[in-house]
């Protein structure tokens, strides 16, 4: 067994377990911490996929910034633990879980039947090249300059929106 296969199963195992823990823990803060752990596992998987830049950004932005915001709000609001998840509306929730399992089986089947790797010949060198900061930066500031600008407006709008909703006093 090769080392990357072992690493994949290790990280995938962590991702699977933590993602299930996120939706089953009754305490929201514990859920958030498991979500952070899940993001770390994903960052590891990105490294296995030769996507160094995204891997770093995943840790800095997702685990570092977004999840800290979540934890901050959770601790600010200090919400109570939820009642056990399946305690109310039980048939509806079982139905939701059943549907989810069904959809998962279907997607998994599709992925094996459709075999997306059929048309793709992996090229290790191209893959390593495409994940570097140079490659991404070059694309981002040439072909993708307009989306980049739009993302700027998106962040501006989000900042203004968050300010409007959270500012102390109304005039």
């Amino acid at each position, binding site marked *: 067994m090769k080392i990357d296969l072992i690493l994949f199963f290790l990280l995938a195992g962590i991702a699977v377990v933590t993602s299930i823990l996120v939706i089953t823990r009754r305490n929201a803060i514990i859920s958030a911490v498991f979500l952070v752990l899940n993001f770390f596992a994903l960052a590891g998987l990105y490294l296995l996929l030769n996507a160094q830049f995204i891997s770093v950004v995943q840790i800095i932005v997702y685990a570092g910034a977004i999840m800290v915001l979540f934890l901050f709000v959770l601790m600010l609001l200090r919400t109570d633990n939820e009642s056990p998840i399946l305690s109310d509306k039980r048939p509806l929730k079982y139905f939701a879980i059943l549907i989810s399992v069904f959809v998962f089986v279907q997607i998994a089947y599709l992925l094996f039947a459709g075999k997306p790797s059929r*048309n793709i010949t992996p090229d290790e060198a191209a893959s390593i090249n495409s994940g570097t900061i140079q490659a991404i930066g070059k694309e981002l500031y040439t*072909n993708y300059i*307009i989306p980049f600008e739009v993302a700027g*407006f998106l962040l501006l709008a989000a900042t*203004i*929106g968050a300010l409007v*909703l959270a500012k102390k006093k109304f005039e």
Partner: protein
Amino acid sequence: MPSTINEYFQLMPFLIIGIGIILSVVIEISSKSSKEILPWFSIILFFATALYSITNISEHAVLFGGMVEVGGKPAIFNFIFNLGAMLVVMSSIGYLKKYGTYFGEYYILIQSSVLGMMVMAGSKDILMIFLGLELMSICFYVLAGINRNKLGANEAAMKYFLLGSFTTGFIVYGIALIYGTTGTTSIQNLIDNFGEYSSNIIFVTGLILFLIGFSFKIAAVPFHMWVPDVYQGSATTVTGLMSTTGKTAAFSVLIIMLTSIFTLNSANIFKPYFSAIAVLSMFFGSIVAISQNNLKRMLAYSSISHAGYMAVGLAAANSYSISGIIFYLAAYAFMNIGAFSVISIIEGENDSRTDINVYAGLNSKNPVLAAFMALFMFALAGIPPMAGFFGKYYVFVGAIESNLTWLAILGVISSMISVYFYLRVIVFMYFKDAEENFEIEVAPYSLSSVVISGVLVLMFGLFPDMLLRLITAVVSL
């Protein structure tokens, strides 16, 4: 490839709004009287962009290495977005004082949301669609809850936000699968090789997830759960914006993504999907609206059923029905914004006076408003010769051309059901006596918004060829 300065000039509509947003932020920060300046500044911006778009409709070009499209279809959509937003801003000036959120950020957010819609309509790359959609949606989440002292507004914002971002998850996952099979996010590539891709099951799955996501945004059944609450809870003018231009933007994306189906004659593999959501939305919207007494909620259900009629056009998917959809969207935008402007004038403080009883005897109190409301109701019901009739007519004829006669017949039946609740408003206004006495304060700007919408609705109704010719000229570009 390096882009030339000329390409930037061709982006004029985006530049006007984009620079306008930045200037608005500067005005809001630096000027004490920004509350008075910003509405007028926005009106000028929107009007300039609308005028620029409609006059430069023939200058079709794809810029920045296949990223953005200007002229053609996007120009018509930009016209609808900007004119619609202009009318909404006009009716907001008086309304926001009543509603208790009289501040400048409101206008900046409307401008940003319009920029998002324009990006969606002009996109030639799935990445642009995604960013435009998010820019629009994030502004709408905030606008829905902009009066954070009101529980109703809070709830509307939260519902819209949670369901909207849930949808985003589906859209991103769908895009991932599309990207995986095509190896690129370019829409031109998608259009050119659609027939080849559509035999790939993963691609179809991705596209279906994408379509489900956008079915949320156009408010089609069974993805409509958020619509009534959000439309009722948000500020009336904001609802006017969300229900018209927001829906138009989502439809523009569907039209872009399915271009190859209606121009290159690829097999319409999504016919069953669109037929199903069309039938469900038409009937669900029309039937549930009958029992509604709150006018905003009634128009929310009517918006669902209108999404159904437009989806008939997507199921038919020939170039005639697509022009029909665009015409319908333009007509629907102005008649709905007009109706919401009237509601925002009648509405009192604290969300009062939105029930249908309030409209009893409106004719004796304010005959002008009553006449315009009647006009909008007739148009929404699709009674000839109003704009709404021709919208439905073109879409249904398109459906018959694609051998979907049964769908057209169901559409006609559903619009006959819907006549009931539109006419009910008119009956209340003209044939019932007023139950309570209240003063209607008609701000001049709000009234001019109503008048302009009314004139546009009449114009599209009496001379439908004028607009339709513009649309058919560019629809297959």
